[in-house]
């Protein structure tokens, strides 16, 4: 990939722009959407009209169509609002993709509270939990646009079905001058002593800023966990280095990375203490600005700092 993707672009545009670079050389790449827009999509649609299908608002149909085409030799990428394409199609993902090992790639935009004021219909705060139950499906949760580009390059060749949860808002660039080892599934952005935040998605940048603010008080590590399924077993070795782990995510505390990692800690008899900073059930299904919703769930910067200071 020669074209440089500006890191200050939306994840969805990084996805479509990168896919476009591959699609113009490979007629088998097909982008299917449920009447979803994006700035980069206008260019893709104009230049490659035969490789784009707007299948209308019919998510279950779209997964079926993509599975059918993929089986007949096409390479299908689905683009939709995350909440719709996941919550509505669990059976299609389980049977049409996972059971038959058909490697369709789903790129969902609007993870967590990205669509804040649009409310619970648009919030994707349970997608990791739901999809972690799907055998053979890979899950990615990129923290910036550069990593999205890497995921697309990998997905074009991958023979596994996958889901990528993209943020709707601009993400702080994290990997502009940093190497990404996609297969590793995580990056230790900052080494710490005794204590580490493992975060996923846009909120990784908040983890970095929190650790800066707490630097005088404590040396806290930061790990960006961007491949959630399958989890790299080497992550366990990192966990062992720390006495306390804080998981940070804009996802229901049930089923998110906190849940996933606490399972690993128990299964492997680690002494590491884990504290989940995530969305609580009683605060879900509401409306509000993203800042407000984050505050309500104690995942805003101030609250995170408080939690960490309290639980050193």
């Amino acid at each position, binding site marked *: 990939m020669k074209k440089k993707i500006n890191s200050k672009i939306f994840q969805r545009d990084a996805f479509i722009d990168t896919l476009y670079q591959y699609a113009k050389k490979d007629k088998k790449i097909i982008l299917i959407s449920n009447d979803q827009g994006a700035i980069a999509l206008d260019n893709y649609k104009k230049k490659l009209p*035969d490789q784009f299908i707007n*299948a*209308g608002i*019919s998510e*279950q*149909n779209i*997964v*079926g*169509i*993509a*599975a*059918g*085409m*993929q*089986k*007949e*030799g*096409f390479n299908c990428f689905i683009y939709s609002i995350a909440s719709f394409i996941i919550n509505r199609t669990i*059976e*299609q993902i389980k*049977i*049409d993709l996972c*059971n*038959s090992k058909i490697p369709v790639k789903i790129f969902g935009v609007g993870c967590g509270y990205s669509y804040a004021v649009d409310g619970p219909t648009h919030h994707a705060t349970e997608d990791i939990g739901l999809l972690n139950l799907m055998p053979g499906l890979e899950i990615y949760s990129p923290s910036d646009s550069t990593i999205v580009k890497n995921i697309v390059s990998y997905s074009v060749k991958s023979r596994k079905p996958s889901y990528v949860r993209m943020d709707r808002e601009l993400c702080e660039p994290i990997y502009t001058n940093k190497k990404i080892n996609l297969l590793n599934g995580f990056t230790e952005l900052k080494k710490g002593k005794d204590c580490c935040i493992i975060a996923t998605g846009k909120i990784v940048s908040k983890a970095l800023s929190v650790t800066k603010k707490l630097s005088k008080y404590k040396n806290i590590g930061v790990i960006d966990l961007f491949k959630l399924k399958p989890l790299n077993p080497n992550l366990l070795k990192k966990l062992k280095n720390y006495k306390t782990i804080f998981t940070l995510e804009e996802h229901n505390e049930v089923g998110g990375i906190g849940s996933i990692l606490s399972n690993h800690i128990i299964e492997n008899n680690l002494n590491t203490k884990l504290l989940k900073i995530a969305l609580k059930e009683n605060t879900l299904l509401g409306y509000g600005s993203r800042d407000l919703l984050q505050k309500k769930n104690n995942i805003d910067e101030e609250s995170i700092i408080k939690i960490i200071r309290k639980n050193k």
Partner: protein
Amino acid sequence: MSKLHLKKIIKKSFTLRQKILNIVIENGGHLATSFSCLDIVVSLYYGGVLKFRYYNPKWSLRDRFILSKGHAETLLYSVLDDLKYFPKSWLSNHYRSGKYILGGHTDSKIPGVEFTAGALGHGLNLACGTALALKRRKNTSRVFVLMSDGECTEGTVWEAAIFASKHKLNNLIAIVDHNKMSATDFTKNFTNINYLEKKFSSFGWKSQVIDGHDIPSLIKIFKKAKKNISNKPIIFIVNTVKGKGLKFIENDPTRHTKGLDEAEKEKAKKLLKII
């Protein structure tokens, strides 16, 4: 097609009924629904409608047959066994005998099965994707999909119906096994899927109501459908009798899952001349 050949196909339909009954008696399975669409499947596979190669199930020029009503697994597996798609031992190791090679619904891991089915309302969408891909690849194979009428209460069926006509999938031939029954009751008692032919034609399909147990006519109609010169997908609403061939279970809505008791097993064997 010669009269002799037709006679052989009709005889095949009878011997497959016997085979299915034997399997169901031995291992369980969906008897009534298999008998309902047996003549349709026999016409497709033995009447020279489908192009296929049992020794190369993934042959790219095969016509794709997608069984959306995955609960007719005993029927499809009996046909695939008869056509040598997999070793003879597989069928006798059927799902309830403990070896789990063949299960209670069709699975894509079995040679000759295009997609896993069992959850309804998936087949037509998968068939649309398959048909669109074949058209784009300029592959002239046809896509047949066999659905149940109860399945037409799934919303996904209508999502696919809209998609297929918009994309002019004239290489797609859908077949509805219209036995007027669902899992627990006559469909008319709980839903309105009357006039399916009108519903589909209003969605931009070519639709036709036909008899599901007249094998010579089914073969003729399916062969003609493969030469579809319109730009519309085709659907056949096929009038069938659930349990066809065993008078005492025919048109009985309780027979979708209910097995045969010992006396009924003997009675059924007698009716199908199994000694």
